[in-house]
């Protein structure tokens, strides 16, 4: 390893050859401002287009300023990150960017959480000397994501996430010069594209060019309507991240406070998606065992591996790109939808409620869940099983606007019966969790023996693609895990080519699984936050007395009282689904 | 077409082809070369100027003399056709009249090679075509 010595702002620093000025400065605790650079270390994504030019620094002997994010250090280099020349250039460039940006900060969705706004404050911009044309585009309201390209600053982070990380390829830079912007093909709306609504573009957007559809106003209306019974379910990953919005350390679990806050907000029942996660394991685990045993018995009809189907971004992805493999994923609905279906049948009956008088809301770390709620197959007579979904970020905003002192809230418990869950359900929130939960149950159901060690360390971690073999008492089950759709694509291509050795694969669209979802508090490029959330999730699992889904007493009761057994006719009707080929073929817009 | 397989092949081919463009190359740098113009007006052609021009071109090449032979219109000496104007490097042009093959041969051997003057030089009050 070759070391290089250089001077930054009159201080010497030694770095590895190949290190950029930006990183080297970090070693000296000098943060060079930037609007486009993004380094998602754990995901092997370093986005450094060198486009915003905010990070320019002065390098002695160089004719023009150098972008710190893209310039490699060299021996004896003398760098000034805050000289007058740099400050003037940086501020002028920022003024230029703002001169092509709306001035509606007061009512902007990202106000207070906007990189551009922060930068304007930091560099003390008070006046924009350049009055001129501003780019304007037609806003795009899809079921999950709003694109307001007037606010795009061409950092191109979304493009990197959509193309390089997710390989969804919906977003591309289009046109050139002042007209250049990021858009789907033919500037069609996202719902006319192959967008999976994974929301990773939203998660990295520095401004409000990409935001989620906001459902908080609708929620406030419904909560204040006394004729409605409003039921809420909270996804496992939310509790591991919500605290961040209130200044708590990443990785702080706030399950109890979250429940308390939801109650204060006026929900009639505060339930847990974790309950439905346990239910998912029952259905999906049964399906896995069924397919596996048919396969072992030589049934040529059955297709393996079985793929998890909890993640709506992932479901859309294979509906668009792998229509030939529609019979491969599990038919089990996602926990959100299982919850909705049970809430509006089993629970409604118990409460003697008409489903039309019920509002089922989900709190999700996800924006694709917003879209999932709107899928036609998840409704009865036009009444959706889950009325709508709000993101972790929206919930935080709601709590703040209700003037609730979140940090001071006492811990409270979920309501029963749809609030009971096991540790297996909690880990749904992180990559590898669903398959670990399934393994715990499938093992015991298959072998009839109790699992001594429930922690499958081999299935955990942050690698994009992981695999492990679990021995089911003589039967080796090969398990694959992928998070990020680009990684999923690799596994899927193998399945398509008939080369896959796996029996079961878990796929999550977002980095780290749901903890890194598009609806979570923004990580601003710091992937260590995702790891902290994952740690919190496993801690919650460990703290539970029950850690296997089939031991959840309320699940057992649900089958006894209502569904019969996993895979029953009623279970199929309420808890399973089917998939559609979605490939867009030569559509023409009017 | 056959492939050129070696540098020698290439050079051979070049020497064969060179005559095609040699005239153009020479004309680019007339300085230092012998310039010869043959009067090719109607009467010149009638009195055999074309044959004289061909003879000069062939013979100059055979005798390795770096010259540019071009044709020009009537030089105005119809009494002495065919006429040939020779300009040696850095010298004034001289016009020869009644040039036949024998005289053409003399022009090359005596005047061009050795600067010897011959009979039949048209007096110096000529005009070259440029000045006409």
């Amino acid at each position: 390893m070759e070391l290089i010595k250089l001077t930054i702002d009159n201080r010497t620093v030694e770095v590895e050859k190949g290190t950029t000025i930006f990183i080297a400065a970090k070693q000296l605790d000098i943060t060079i401002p930037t609007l486009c650079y993004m380094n998602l270390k754990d995901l092997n994504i370093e986005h450094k287009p060198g486009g915003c030019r905010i990070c320019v620094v002065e390098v002695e002997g160089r004719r023009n300023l150098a972008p710190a994010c893209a310039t490699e250090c060299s021996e004896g280099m003398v760098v000034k990150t805050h000289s007058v020349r740099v400050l003037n250039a940086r501020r002028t460039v920022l003024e230029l960017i703002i001169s092509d940006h709306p001035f509606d900060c007061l009512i902007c969705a990202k106000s207070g959480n906007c990189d551009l706004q922060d930068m304007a404050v930091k560099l003390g911009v008070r006046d924009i000397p350049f009055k001129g044309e501003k780019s304007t585009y037609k806003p795009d309201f899809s079921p999950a994501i709003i694109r307001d390209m007037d606010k795009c600053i061409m950092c191109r982070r979304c493009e990197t996430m959509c193309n390089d990380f997710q390989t969804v390829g919906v977003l591309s830079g289009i046109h050139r010069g002042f007209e250049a912007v990021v858009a789907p093909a033919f500037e069609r709306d996202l719902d006319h594209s192959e967008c999976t609504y994974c929301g990773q573009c939203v998660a990295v957007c520095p401004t409000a060019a990409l935001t989620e559809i906001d459902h908080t106003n609708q929620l406030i209306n419904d909560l204040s309507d006394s004729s409605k019974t409003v039921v809420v379910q909270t996804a496992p990953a939310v509790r591991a991240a919500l605290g961040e919005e209130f200044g708590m350390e990443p990785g702080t679990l706030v399950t109890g406070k979250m429940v308390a806050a939801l109650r204060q907000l006026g929900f009639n029942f505060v339930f847990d998606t974790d309950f439905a996660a346990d239910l998912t394991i029952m259905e999906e685990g049964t399906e896995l065992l069924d397919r596996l045993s048919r396969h072992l018995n030589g049934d040529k009809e059955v297709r393996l591996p079985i793929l998890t189907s909890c993640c709506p971004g992932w479901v859309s992805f294979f509906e668009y790109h792998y229509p030939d493999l529609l019979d491969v994923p599990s038919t089990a609905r996602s926990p959100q939808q299982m919850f909705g279906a049970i809430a509006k049948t089993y629970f409604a009956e118990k409460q003697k409620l008409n489903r039309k008088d019920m509002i089922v809301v989900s709190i999700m770390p996800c924006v694709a869940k917003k879209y999932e709620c709107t899928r036609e197959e998840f409704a009865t007579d036009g009444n959706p099983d889950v009325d709508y979904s709000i993101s972790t970020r929206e919930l935080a905003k709601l709590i703040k606007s209700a003037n609730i002192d979140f940090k001071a809230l006492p811990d409270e418990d979920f309501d029963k019966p749809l609030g009971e869950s096991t540790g297996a359900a909690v880990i749904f929130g992180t990559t590898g969790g669903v398959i670990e939960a399934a393994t715990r149950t499938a093992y015991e159901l298959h072998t009839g023996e109790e699992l001594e060690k429930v922690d499958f360390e081999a299935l955990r971690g942050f690698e994009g693609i992981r695999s492990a073999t679990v021995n089911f008492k003589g039967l080796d089950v090969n398990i694959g895990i992928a998070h990020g759709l680009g990684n999923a694509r690799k596994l899927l291509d193998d399945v398509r080519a008939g080369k896959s050795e796996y029996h079961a694969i878990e796929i999550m669209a977002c980095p780290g699984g749901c903890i890194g979802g598009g609806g979570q508090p923004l990580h601003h490029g710091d992937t260590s936050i995702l790891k902290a959330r994952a740690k919190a999730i496993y801690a919650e699992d460990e703290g539970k007395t029950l850690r296997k889904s089939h031991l959840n007493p309320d699940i057992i009761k649900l089958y006894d009282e209502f569904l019969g057994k996993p895979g029953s006719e009623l279970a199929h009707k309420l808890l399973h689904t089917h998939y559609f080929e979605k490939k867009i073929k030569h559509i023409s817009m009017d | 077409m056959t492939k050129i397989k070696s540098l020698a092949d290439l050079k051979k081919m070049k020497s064969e082809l060179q005559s095609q463009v040699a005239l153009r190359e020479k004309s680019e740098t007339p300085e230092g070369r012998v310039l010869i113009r043959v009067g090719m007006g109607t009467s010149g052609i009638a009195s055999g100027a074309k044959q004289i021009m061909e003879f000069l071109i062939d013979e100059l090449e055979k005798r390795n003399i770096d010259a540019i032979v071009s044709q020009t219109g009537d030089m105005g000496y119809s009494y002495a056709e065919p006429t040939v104007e020779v300009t040696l490097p850095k010298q004034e042009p001289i016009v020869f009249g009644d040039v036949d093959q024998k005289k053409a041969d003399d022009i090359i051997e005596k005047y061009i090679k050795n600067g010897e003057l011959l009979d039949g030089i048209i007096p110096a009050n000529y005009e070259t075509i440029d000045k006409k």
Partner: protein
Amino acid sequence: MAKYKMHMLVCGGTGCHASEGQMLFENLKKEVQDNNLENDVQVIATGCFGFCEKGPIVKVIPDNTFYVSVEPKDAKEIVAEHALKGRAVKRLLYFDPVRKEQIPDSKHMGFYKKQLRIALRNCGMIDPENINEYLAADGYEAMGKVLLEMTPEEAIKEVMDSGLRGRGGGGFPTGLKWQIASKNHADQKYVVCNADEGDPGAFMDRSILEGDPHTVLEAMVINGYAIGATKGLIYIRAEYPLAIHRLKIAIDQAREYGLLGTDILGSGFDFDVEIRYGAGAFVCGEETALIHSMEGERGEPTFKPPFPAQSGYLGKPTNVNNVETYANIPVIITKGAKWFSSIGTEKSKGTKVFALAGKINNVGLIEVPMGITLREVIFEIGGGIQGGKKFKAVQTGGPSGGCLTEKHLDTPIDFDNLLSVGSMMGSGGMIVMDEDDCMVAVAKFYLEFTVEESCGKCSPCRIGNKRLHEQLDIISKGNATEKDLDNLRNLSNVIKDTSLCGLGQTSPNPVLSTMDNFWDEYLAHVNEKRCPSGVCKDLIRYEVIAENCVGCTACARNCPVNCISGERKQLHVIDQALCIKCNACLEKCKFNAIAVI
């Protein structure tokens, strides 16, 4: 083989092609045949002679008779008179507007006198569609010498010693570039010829490809051998159909002769060439953008390093040179680095091709030794300003260059001198302007180009140039203040200082150089709300000069918006509210009765 006594060279470049050069060529051939002269007279379509102002051109060899503005119907007379009777067709000879006389041959034309043609040596000399003519003109000899008698290191050294610098704009030493690429080891390397000439007003690369395509191929083989690449790509503008056509013919012929392909000349070295098409993006002249474009991507540049020599086309070491640079290579090899470096100035060796255009008498393509002065180029080669007007400025370096003035006329032209006076060599566009050109409008024109051609990747270029253009527009409308000029200068400097690629790093040059050299003109627009050259529409008005108007009605009849009223033989009046300042009245008035105020 026929031994021709006379060669008729017809310019077959795009410029002359456009003005019926093709038909002229065919007519000449037919006339020669009809007069049974096919064994005496050879008619050849060559590349560009450079004297585009007066195309189509026919040059008759050996007497170098230079016919200009020849029409297809003139073929008969040329053959009958010149080929048969040896008499030049005087009416077609070039008339020198300065000397006021007809010039009998090219050797006496001021346009050619100070030129030195190295890169253009074969343009206008040989038939570009016939490889034999190229071979006859020493073609592929340099390649043979390199492949069989030199090591790659020796070839690089020769180029390095010659002092040749990239002719595409940057002026990076070519030999050094080759050396860097040669030192990066890889299983595959590439040699790329940049023929995506995008400078409006520069067309030397096109002319070379049209007039002498083999020289580029030959140089690319040499380049490939020197750096260890076996594949060559030519990235050429799709808007150059004739150049593409001739290049394709050249490639086919070279392959047939085995001068491209495997085991070239028995050297054991393999090399072949493919053509890639540009699609109309100026920024693709930047080498990283060009490479992305060849890979089927948007032509957006990326930050260097990594340089293409490290990671270029498909991630492999790639050497990119422009057409004119390549055209110098075979001559450097045959005549030697010493010969080449004896031409030019201390740090800029050899010659440079310029596309001379604008308000100048002899528009065309010229090649001159480095170190020649702007005055020599404009007033001797270019024949001075059109219509006897006064010289005002010369813009070099294309849209990224600067406007130079009277005081720079005696500056010897080379890379460094042009930079030091606030302009640049660029690819060699040279646009001459006269007293009628407004410098604010000129700067605005160039910015309009940059705004249109910016790729949009980096903020200063994407937004900054747009703002520069808007500011200039405000100035040209008389709505700016002196403080705006300060902002304009600061913004220009910041764009230069912070942009990602050469496009943005140079795009403010026209603004800065016009501000430096024509500050008074800016002040006039800003303070007096006046356009001294009478160009900026919002600051001028057309008025009828009462004492000159005879009431001929010509102006009123020609006014497209009918804003001029007046009875016959009465004074006419322009309605300022309706006038669109189209200049039609002024052009039509025979009595000098319309004035721009």
